[in-house]
């Protein structure tokens, strides 16, 4: 059983997001990037399947600042191989899932896995999420919002989640694309020593036969939401804030 797991960097949302001059994108110059939280889960699920079923795990990413380190992290966590898909920054107008899906799909065709695991969404998926795009570009079945994956006899059994915590279990023929929400165990920590061992390792490139597709980013503008109608803010130090909340709770009759 061969598993491909996709790893993507995305802006750290606790940092202040600034917009580019034309308002079409965030200003990527100063913002920190980290592994997409759902791709983190996808990696964990892939490694869990390797441990339970002896699958081989290949992590892939589109080449970008930090992608090399991210893939080394995947190797340290248990991936058997890792590849970067080269992308000339001048060739891309947008890095949306819709735009980049053909490149990932081409890599998947080259690697020919039984299972592709990718996080259910990334926080800039304005034009749709990656897993269903990969399903469409590969012609393979796709299932998202998955919270359990088990493998047996060339088939996968998955648990798909719906509103209110309802769920259903499905048997899925492979090859299949899975948009993972949560792995069956929380992502493991990786020892710094393991990462240091990988410092000198070169992550090879995987040349693929595909080009980014168009999306609607040329007609999209971003803006900070107007929060003026939002919360009444309590200022001061911790004691001032606690006093304000206490007073509010008294005023509203929640406490004496």
């Amino acid at each position: 059983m061969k598993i491909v797991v996709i790893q993507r960097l995305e802006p750290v949302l606790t940092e202040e997001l600034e917009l580019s001059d034309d308002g079409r994108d965030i200003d990527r110059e100063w913002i920190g990037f980290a592994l997409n939280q759902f791709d983190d889960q996808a990696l964990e699920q892939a490694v869990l399947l390797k441990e339970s079923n002896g699958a081989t795990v290949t992590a892939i990413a589109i080449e970008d600042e930090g992608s090399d380190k991210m893939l080394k992290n995947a190797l340290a966590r248990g991936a058997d191989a890792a590849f970067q898909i080269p992308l000339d920054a001048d060739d891309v107008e947008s890095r949306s899932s819709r735009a980049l899906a053909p490149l990932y799909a081409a890599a998947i065709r080259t690697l020919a896995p039984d299972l592709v695991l990718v996080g259910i969404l990334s926080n800039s998926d304005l034009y749709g999420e990656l897993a269903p795009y990969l399903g469409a570009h590969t012609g393979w079945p796709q299932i998202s919002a998955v919270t359990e994956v088990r493998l047996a006899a060339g088939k996968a059994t998955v648990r798909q989640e719906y509103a209110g915590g309802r769920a259903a279990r499905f048997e899925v023929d492979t090859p299949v694309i899975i948009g993972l929400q949560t792995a069956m165990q929380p992502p493991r920590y990786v020892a710094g020593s393991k990462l240091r061992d990988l410092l000198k390792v070169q992550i090879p490139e995987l040349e693929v036969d595909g080009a980014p597709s168009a999306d609607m980013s040329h007609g999209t503008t971003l803006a900070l939401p107007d929060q003026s109608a939002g919360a009444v803010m309590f200022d001061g130090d911790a004691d001032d804030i606690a006093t304000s909340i206490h007073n509010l709770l008294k005023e509203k009759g929640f406490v004496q």
Partner: protein
Amino acid sequence: MTILVLIEHYQGGVADGSLELLTLARTLGGPVTALVLAGSMADVATLAAGLDADTVLAVAAPAVARYASSVYLRSLNAAIAACDPELVLLSYSTAGIDLAAGASVATGREMVAYVTSLTRHGAGFAACSQVYGGKLLATSTLPAQGIAVVMPGAVKAGPRSTGDAPVQTLTVDLGPDGCIRHLETLVPESGGIDLTKAARIVCVGRALGNTDKLPMAEALAKLLGAEIAGSRPVIDAGWLPKPRQIGKSGTKVKPKLYLMAGVSGAPEHLEGMGESELIIALNSDPRAPIFGKAHYGAVCDMFEVMPTLIQKLS
């Protein structure tokens, strides 16, 4: 040209999100077609009763009696081909995620997701969406014949129709046995916890970090006579049990008091608690989206404010 709305349902009831889409389609104007997939024509008739649509397009087959992404996608693509709609509306649900991007590639249509408002704009539509966990708003122009995935709660569902729309049957090649086969439906175990009944809730987010500081939040909840709850990452990490998850894939609550600490206010969380009567949010990030929703807030370290508040309440 019609607006096509995918109707989702569970145990014979139409999902609130689908009813909201029908209302949105009516607001946009023009004929509305509701796409209903069910196990039999009798089930279609039950689901279609009172839908505010001009036409119900029905796919009736045992394979679509329950939701499965593969057969639903084939049906949606066939429906789009059959009625060539000027707009396709899906709800931001598991089905919405599963189907919209696939249908957009298969039918050659543009799509936009996380839509909070949609209006006519020239020959197409202007869409406003929430991106980056609700930290930014995106305004895009969706050309005619596009697909929009709309956030639950973006529109309030209007009243059910008194008449029934005519039903047209659509025959779809659903494939041999489907490559994604439903095995069982799983109902969440409550473990005796029902947060929908709680009048007061203290909710902690990922900022909790681990279970070391959970007793602090629990102590605060106890002093307030509140139930403790968590955002999804808190439940995924195993710090609190699943029935204590608030949000899209957890429990939807409407308590009198919702005191939240270290929760960013992602749209999926707001979906579960946005209608709480009094929301107080503690967050260290002044730009956290939750401050756009909460009634009261403070930019602070929750681990400094919570113990002080506990002292005052003790």
